[in-house]
């Protein structure tokens, strides 16, 4: 039996021990400390895109994304300082300033991670200019719809499609603010030959960007699907 080495570190002043190779985010979560994130999901490859899980590590002037940084022995991590809270608020506001986020008429209203986080962080306004760009909506699929106006580019859909379903229908095109989630070689979803219609992308979407037509978010959202399937696969 392989021996697992254990790493000891301090998170918010609390001494914790976790297996080597664990990310700060997971180490914190396993010890009851929740660090906010919009792109990370257990069962999927860490991405580090939303910048909400930024933490401070004593001795380093820079901030680290907790989802992509592995623990080190003797590390002292701070997850909740005034500076971090301000950065997180700013990150949420930047997400909201891009594209169109109108909770009242969104399918994910009350079931949206961005909305919940904004409430939790006390984001009651957006300090940056809002762009209200007009992105395309693709509802050519029989039941799956992508409304790119609401997309925050967390890539959960792409990673769940690649890693869990194994087909990699979804991917990104363009860069920066023009980045878009596309299907196959930028085809309409209804014409995609690789999409199996498994719905996992809609289940893990943190906002209302991918949804199932005619279904409420309560029925659709099942955000631990990747973790669930990964665990089931380990049993074999």
């Amino acid at each position, binding site marked *: 039996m392989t021996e697992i080495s254990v790493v000891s570190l301090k998170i918010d002043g609390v001494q914790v021990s976790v297996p080597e190779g664990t990310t700060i985010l997971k180490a914190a979560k396993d010890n009851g400390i929740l660090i906010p994130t919009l792109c990370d999901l257990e069962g999927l490859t860490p991405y580090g895109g939303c910048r909400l899980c930024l933490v401070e590590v004593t001795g380093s002037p820079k901030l680290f994304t907790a989802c992509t940084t592995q623990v080190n022995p003797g590390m002292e991590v701070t997850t909740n300082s005034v500076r971090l809270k301000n950065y997180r608020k700013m990150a949420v506001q930047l997400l909201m300033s891009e594209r169109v986020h109108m909770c*009242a*008429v969104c399918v994910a*209203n009350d079931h949206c991670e961005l909305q919940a986080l904004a409430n939790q962080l006390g984001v009651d306004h957006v300090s940056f200019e809002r762009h209200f760009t*007009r992105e395309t*909506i*693709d*509802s*050519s699929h*029989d039941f799956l*719809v992508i*409304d790119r106006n609401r997309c925050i580019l967390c890539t959960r859909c792409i990673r769940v499609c690649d890693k869990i379903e194994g087909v990699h229908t979804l991917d990104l095109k363009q860069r920066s603010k023009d980045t878009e989630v596309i299907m196959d070689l930028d085809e309409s979803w209804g014409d995609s030959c690789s999409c199996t219609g498994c719905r996992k992308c809609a289940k893990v979407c943190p906002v209302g960007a991918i949804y199932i*037509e*005619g279904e*409420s978010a309560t029925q659709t959202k099942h955000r631990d699907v990747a973790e669930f399937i990964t665990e089931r696969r380990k049993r074999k």
Partner: protein
Amino acid sequence: MDNNNENNSSSNDKVFEKKIVINPVTRIEGHAQIDILLNQDNTVREAKFKVTDFRGFEKFTEGRPYYEMPAITSRSCGICPVSHILAATKACDGIVGVKPPKTAVMLRRLMHMGQIIQSHALNFFHLSSPDLLFGFDSDPAKRNVFGLIDAYPDLAVQGVKLRRFGQEIVEKVAGRRVHSSEWVQPGGVRWPLSRERADYLQSKLPEALEIAKNTLSMFKQMLNSFNDEVENFGNFPSYYMGLVNSEGGLEHYDGKLRIIDNEGRMVAECTDPLKYQEYVGEAVEPYTFMKFPYFKKAGYPEGAYRVGPLARLNVASHCGTPLADEEFREFKKLGKNGGVVESTFHYHYARLIETLFCIETTKKLLEDPEILSEHVVSRAMVNNYEGVGIAEAPRGTLIHHYKVDNQGRITWNNMIIATEHNNIAYNKAITQVAKKYVKAQQLQEGMLNRVEAVIRAFDPCLSCATHAVGQMALIIKLFDNKGTLIDRQVR
């Protein structure tokens, strides 16, 4: 605000010697101003109703999926979101091309009854009753809902209770009191009504019915003291438009769109909602953001028609519930030509009869065991590229017309809101009232209040705001023939 008024003035206004501006018009839903234009001898020449809101729903919904329309368009109004939800959903029913199950239709109708009850209660008790109970010339500091609570606490409580009952119907049926768009979907509704909720609503019915009956009898007793207003409050011939059911009875959810003339003759009946444009045209004027719909056959502006409670009772042959029918027969006696009641003042009367009708209909719907069926949706996808939904909102006929592409994304949207239909009539009515009551040499608050009150009688819903609370913000300005401000009164 002053500059704004002058900028709003069209160049045509300059030929008039003086202008009185009422801005904003208070105790209505939305933002508007009234300009009263005077001749050289200080007599009233014309009055104009200017809507200063701009919303833009028809444009910014382009590109959105059709099934989002009930949620988006209902945001145009916080008073009658249910009517928008229903007109939008019916347009979506047309796009998917399915017939919703009977229970879904009953539930939608039930929700609509709740909407009309609460909206009518809001208009009568909160907005209009201060004028009726205290008099048009009374102290404006008292002539509002707080004055009402002070002087007639029992009546105020009844108003609140009746409005609450209406809102509770919407909440119990659709989950939320306001903007309950999550519940509806093209082809039906998302969840059925539970027995507990139906029982709860039934338990509240007797009290609501009692309040409606009492209010109606109180109003009828007061009517004699308003003979002057009845005669002069927008009392003019016009066409009337409203939905009727297959038997020609009062209808709010679905049916034939009927237009009658001022003598009660049916001049048009539209059975296919998609063909509404054969009957209704829309004109625009540069001074207001509100369009001027007109009856196409008669042309603009001769084709002025009215919608809303008064129009609905004028076009219908009966109500269809016992108590409301009794009141309906009495109401019709006020009509001169073939039972057509012309005075805008009687919108109040018609509103109270409708409230009674809605409570009785609620009772009828709740007593039908089929209301509890769990078959509430017919599923389908985009089958038609065009859909029209017509419903009777509390303030009148509401039309939603959508066109979609092959993926169901909106490519074109036309909404005709109930309040718009009455636009030509507003201008006629305020001109009539201003001519009768406004004497420019000796401006008095009560004169101008009457001009506002005729607008209130129509119960316009210019957006989702209610101005029933707070200080009256009426500004009256007098200009001389060089456009110089010579008098300004703020109350």
